[in-house]
């Protein structure tokens, strides 16, 4: 054992080496500390710079948007300003109804289907499940305009349904599906194994365990995912832009062309009428508040779940 340790006697150069290391270290210490401080400051500056757009954007939204909002804004149909009445923009009731209709129709399809597929992915290890997992993750990041192209080709063109809220809802459903699938799978997988085993040990059939024990335990996680999916769908422009036609009436009918708040913002932001450009801020403010409420709800919901677990 003793030959294992081969402790060197300090060589003649040993002291020189140590002295030189000390000297170098002393010499650059102040500079190192200063560099570190500067970099800390630079990183903090980056953080502030990152916050600037949010602050500026919110400032503009409230400054220019609040004045646009009144009762008529929500309840009347839009009108086009004319030379005689250059401020006559009307309201956005059709956009609000359109947004709600699109989201509701999309949710009716996407939520049940997404949850079922999510449960399937969590509860099996088949090849199909592995493939669908990659597919859903890739689709979750796909550019949303592609959902629009898909809905146009399939619903508007091939099935000859025409520009309609059902086509827009289809595009949004395709957009929401992967989000719901992924969050459902994670939520179901996070349910402790002991809970399942307890159920199975009691002799319950697997579907009873799944529906009666696993899904209720995973509910908060699933709801969080669903809310996030909805909040994303509500604000999307690109997928509906190509297929809903931009109707100017208050219509809940699935086969009518409709408009939506994001679409109205997109179309009117470039309007030649100052009054229409101003009104767009009001629509944007309503939309952003709505989306923020949804995503904050999801966040609070998720953190409550964590607290319960801890």
């Amino acid at each position, binding site marked *: 054992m003793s030959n294992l340790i081969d402790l060197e006697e300090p060589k003649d150069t040993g002291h020189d080496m140590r002295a030189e290391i000390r000297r170098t270290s002393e010499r650059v210490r102040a500079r190192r500390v200063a560099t570190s401080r500067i970099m800390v400051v630079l990183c903090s*500056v980056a953080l502030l710079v990152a916050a600037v757009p949010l602050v500026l954007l919110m400032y503009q*939204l409230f400054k220019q948007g609040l004045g646009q909002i009144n009762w008529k804004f929500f309840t009347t149909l839009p009108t086009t300003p004319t030379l005689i009445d250059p401020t006559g923009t009307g309201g956005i009731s059709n956009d609000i109804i359109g947004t709600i209709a699109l989201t509701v129709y999309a949710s009716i399809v996407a939520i049940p289907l997404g949850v079922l597929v999510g449960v399937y992915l*969590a509860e099996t290890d088949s090849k199909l499940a592995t493939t669908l997992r990659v597919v859903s993750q890739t689709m979750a990041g796909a550019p949303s305009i592609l959902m629009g*192209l898909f809905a146009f080709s399939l619903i508007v063109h091939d099935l000859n349904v025409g520009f309609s809220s059902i086509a827009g809802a289809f595009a949004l459903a395709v957009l929401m599906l992967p989000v719901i699938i992924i969050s459902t799978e994670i939520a179901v997988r996070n349910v402790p194994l002991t809970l399942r085993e307890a159920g199975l040990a009691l002799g319950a059939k697997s579907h009873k365990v799944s529906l009666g024990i696993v899904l209720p335990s995973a509910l908060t996680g699933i709801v969080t995912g669903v809310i996030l999916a909805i909040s994303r769908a509500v604000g999307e422009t690109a997928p509906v832009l190509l297929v809903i036609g931009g109707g100017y009436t208050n219509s809940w009918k699935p086969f009518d062309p409709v408009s939506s708040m994001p679409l109205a913002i997109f179309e009117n932001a*470039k309007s030649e009428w100052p009054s229409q450009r101003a009104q767009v801020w009001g629509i944007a403010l309503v939309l952003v508040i709505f989306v923020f409420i949804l995503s904050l709800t999801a966040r609070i919901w998720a953190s409550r779940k964590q607290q319960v677990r801890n």
Partner: protein
Amino acid sequence: MSETPVVGLLEYDEMVEEPGSSTISRRTWYHYVLIVAALLFAAISLGFVGTIFWSSWPEWIHHGTTLLTGKGWTSPDGPFGGLPMILGTLETSLIALVIAVIIGLGTSISIVFFIPRQFRTIVATLVELLAAIPSVVYGLWGLLVIAPWMQTTVNPWLNSWPFAKAIFGNSGQEFGTSLLLASIVLGIMILPTFVAISREVIAVVPQDLMEASLSLGATRWQMIREVVLPTAKIGLFGATFLALARATGETVAVALVAGSVANVQFHLLYPGTSIAAWIATEFGEAQGNEISALMALGVLLMLLNVCLALISRSLVTRQRRALARV
């Protein structure tokens, strides 16, 4: 079977089936509902890819090279050249990426290391809110607030430097919309994506590695630069690719602020467009062959996005595995 310690519920019923017992599968109605749902989703995703490919097929057959290399887009009869959009997508996304990575890396480092713990949740929430703002609102803000400011302040300032003028070009634009503006707005939009992932990747670097470096007399910055960032490197590349994927797919914001001009343009103060933005701008008026050509652009966008997403995913997975071994 012995290698899968966790058995999904669906497998459970098949496992308890004993030899000699009834050969009829014990699958219940619930199994079939789940399998049908999965097959339906598989059909939708196949349809998603297939329909867009199918619709673009005529254009690929007849004018494939024009789509990839043609320099002009003539509605409604063609030729439909995709080069301006392809280049515009690359230019705006890459500049946006540079902006987002520089600011985002500093932001993530600050959030993980420098911000007092009680503020961390607030900052994380703010970053999430930035990500939640619909892209059309960013576009609106870029068009009505930033574009006029670029027009009156930034562009003249850039043009006052001969060197910058040579690079960025003369800003004769009426509205201030340009490829540069699109890049900046895109950079702001993909920042939360980059921060969300890079923050997570940085935060999971093992504490004892950092303490080891500090115990060797490293300053905090040396600890970050020499130990934290190299350890998190692969994951940070993953975050970068994901942010790039987001940037290339962003549609309406770019459509609003890039200026919607289909020219090959390297001077960034001139207007331009991107693949996604051009689809959004042109689709409303498109007929016949042009629709097919726009679908073909969609195919390009899809391929680009899938490549970037897969690269990003494999990098982030590799990082997780690497850290699990440490």
